[in-house]
């Protein structure tokens, strides 16, 4: 029988070295007696206290076991080292064991790991420092007394070091003390609770705690499940809890019973000041744009961020009409800025079409979509929605008086010519629109983006480029306004 005593400070490394030695010597778990320092296990009568030398042979253990062991060694269960070694022993032949959540040995260790993690987290949360040096000293110093459930101070020193690097601090627990001075942490054995000086900031903290509590919603169990009573004795704010609970119902009743009061005198003056302020986000301006932004003609406005008006010179020889704003346009508040808009810009530049001189807009002004998780899935507007929005499109046409309108895609063709069918056959042709304008039908750039086949994409892009070049040629020569055969 071998007896191994693992120290309290540096337990992870000590256990690991011992376990490696035992494993390389082939010592079965039943032949080892593990002792934890400070937990006074009875010494075995026939023990040999020899620490086995670390074997030269490399040992391969799953990484997840190392993380588990480095946590569980800080548990208070005296059996922790034996349990870990027993699992390590089994892992020799079954390395897949670590992903078997139903194995009872592993389940028990995982449970212990969870308890240690919780304890570590609660220590980070509930340690309360008091200032022990002068507040105006060049390097301030603080101290805390804390009673953790497990031996978690050692695993937390890195956290406190990274957080409170510009001050000296010490955390005293019954088993281990961590002292941080001159940028170094040192661990010593535990001490009794020190007498810490009063700290004025603690009064302010209590004031905050008392006032952030809402007496109308008392949920004591929700509090104690996350902040168990065992921690209360070292939390300054816990002293206020019983009083807050006792007075809460009366305070809530008093709020409900109080009669409404008249507004104070300054209310009117303050509101008058507000009325004078104009927000940069407000819909300023009047006319067509303001009317479009306020549109509620169809239900699409309910889910969109904003209506997207057309952009470009108010009078334009050429007008470009797309389908509807997409995700990017809806957020940015401008038409043709998303992927399809960027493709349009690129092809238009290649075709010699000056986008700045054209009036670009959409057949439908709000983004139609369905929410799916964190994304919005584009949906084609139906004929009813196109019909409702035609009101605005026609108003834009009437204002811009274009010589030629380019209808990109079937929705635009539907709005402008009354039919959105057979776009592939009709593209490249100029037809008479519903308002008597010449309408050049072409593809929508998002169709090009969706084509999976590279060759087809190249062909379609060439067609689209040719149509835009045609538009650039035709537009200046056409007289502004509806062409000769006015209806």
């Amino acid at each position, binding site marked *: 029988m071998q007896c191994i005593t693992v120290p309290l400070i540096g337990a992870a490394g000590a256990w690991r070295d011992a376990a490696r030695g035992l494993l390389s010597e082939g010592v079965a778990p039943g032949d080892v007696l593990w002792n934890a320092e400070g937990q006074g296990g009875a010494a075995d009568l026939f023990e040999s206290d020899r620490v086995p030398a670390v074997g030269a042979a490399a040992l391969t253990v799953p990484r997840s076991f190392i993380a588990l062991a480095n946590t569980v060694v800080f548990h208070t269960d005296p059996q922790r080292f034996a349990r870990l070694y027993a699992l390590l022993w089994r892992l020799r032949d079954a390395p897949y064991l670590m992903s078997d959540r139903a194995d009872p040995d592993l389940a028990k260790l995982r449970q212990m790991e969870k308890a240690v993690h919780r304890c570590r987290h609660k220590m980070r949360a509930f340690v309360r420092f008091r200032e022990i040096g002068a507040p105006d000293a060049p390097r301030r110093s603080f101290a805390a007394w804390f009673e953790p459930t497990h031996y978690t101070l050692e695993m937390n020193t890195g956290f406190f070091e*990274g957080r409170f690097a510009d001050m000296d601090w010490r955390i005293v627990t019954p088993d281990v003390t961590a002292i941080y001075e001159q940028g170094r942490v040192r661990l010593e054995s535990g001490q009794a609770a020190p007498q810490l000086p009063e700290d004025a900031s603690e009064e302010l903290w209590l004031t905050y705690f008392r006032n952030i509590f809402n007496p109308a919603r008392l949920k004591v169990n929700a509090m104690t499940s996350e902040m168990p009573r065992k921690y209360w004795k070292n939390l300054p704010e816990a002293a206020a809890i019983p009083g807050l609970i006792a007075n809460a119902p009366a305070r809530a009743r008093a709020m409900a019973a109080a009669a409404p009061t008249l507004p104070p005198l300054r209310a009117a003056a303050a509101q008058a000041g507000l009325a004078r302020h104009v927000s940069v986000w407000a819909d300023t301006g009047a006319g067509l744009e303001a009317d479009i932004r306020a549109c509620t003609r169809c239900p699409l406005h309910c889910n969109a961020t904003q209506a997207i008006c057309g952009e470009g010179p108010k009078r334009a020889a050429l007008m470009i009409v797309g389908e509807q704003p997409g995700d990017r346009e809806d957020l940015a508040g401008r038409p043709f800025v998303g992927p399809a808009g960027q493709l349009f810009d690129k092809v238009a530049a290649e075709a010699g079409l000056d986008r700045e001189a054209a009036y670009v807009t959409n057949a439908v002004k709000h983004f139609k979509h369905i929410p799916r998780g964190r994304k919005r899935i584009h949906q084609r507007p139906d004929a009813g929605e196109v019909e409702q929005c035609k009101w605005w499109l026609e108003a834009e046409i009437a204002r811009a008086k274009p010589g030629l309108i380019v209808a990109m895609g079937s929705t635009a063709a539907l709005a402008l010519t009354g039919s959105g069918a057979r776009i592939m056959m009709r593209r490249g042709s100029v037809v008479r629109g519903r308002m008597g304008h010449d309408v050049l039908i072409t593809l929508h750039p998002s169709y090009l983006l969706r084509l999976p086949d590279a060759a087809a994409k190249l062909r379609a892009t060439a067609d689209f480029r040719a149509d835009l070049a045609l538009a650039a040629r035709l537009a200046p020569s056409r007289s502004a306004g509806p062409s000769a055969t006015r209806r």
Partner: protein
Amino acid sequence: MTRQTLDQKLAILSDAAKYDASCASSGGTKRNARSGGLGSNTGSGICHSYAPDGRCISLLKILMTNFCIYDCSYCINRVSSNVPRARFSVEEVVKLTIEFYRRNYIEGLFLSSGVIRSPDATMSDMVQIARKLRHEENFKGYIHLKTIPDAAPDLIAEAGRLSDRLSINVELPTDAALSTYAPEKNPGQIRRAMADVRQRREASKERSHTGKRPPKFAPAGQSTQVIIGADASTDATVLTQSTRLYSSYGLRRVYYSAFSPIPDASAKLPLISPPLQREHRLYQADWLLRFYGFDVDEITSVTPDGNLALDIDPKLAWALQHRGLFPLDVNRASRELLLRVPGFGVKTVNRILTTRRHRHLRYEDITRMGASMKKAGAFVTAGGWTPGSLTDSAHLRARFAPPPEQMSLF
């Protein structure tokens, strides 16, 4: 009037801030003070204390001032209220944050404010506090700034660079309710401001052509809050709005805050006891939407009136209406279906999936994986376990619902 002490101001301005439910300190960039300064952020939040209302205290949640020129009926700080008023100076907020932080009371600062003078003036004071904390005190803890919806874009841009999280409250579930109870707020402007934050966040993630990364913008994302129970909106309305906000503006969280009595309440909104159970069910439904692959319609179509059942959780309510799908065999069912079993969480499902590669799962195996078999038992089969006729039993709902109570006669 006598000069208020810091303690008095803190009492007034924390009392005024407590109706905002958000307290999370999670997310954001990982950083620490090893290279100088004070504070760290681990990425997962820490709740440093809990008040008896069950809410966690993670951040120093205060208002810069509770003077306000808006008149929102549900709000304690509305201009027509007679609550005591106070205003912190920039230095006072900075000092409180640093001193609380050094004593490990808090993870950082959650600063909100009533609107004084103008939205821009208010936002610029808040930004000044964040700037001082970050640049003069070299503070590396968490900062959450409430965005004043009407503030100028360059102020919002600076606020986003200084803070971990930005939030703008939508306040009420519908635009109509907002214009009734908060006449000065404009729902369209609030949404445009959220869209603006999302675009800035996305722009901050794109490297320039030289490969240079632009400064981070609100790395912990944006969140919002909806008040529940002040207006007559159903849960279906509330959840539909949340879905819209999550998908449109990439929000990290939508907080639901049960409308709670406030001192000196407005006559327009009679006080009620806060609907805490409803709030709880909404959070559960919110989780189902985000992590369990449920659609809003699936959750809200279970009850005829569009409100979630209060006595049982929404997942159980859905499962009881769709018993035809159950019982599922835990050894065969897909991940999507396992996530729909009441009593199985995301972690349990992941454990089932990894473990069943090694062995045939039995009833006791699943209990060891953290599942609540009291609930799940009626909906799954496993080695050595079948619910038999329990799945289709008429009394199944009664097993889970709390027993009916006699209403108080007085």
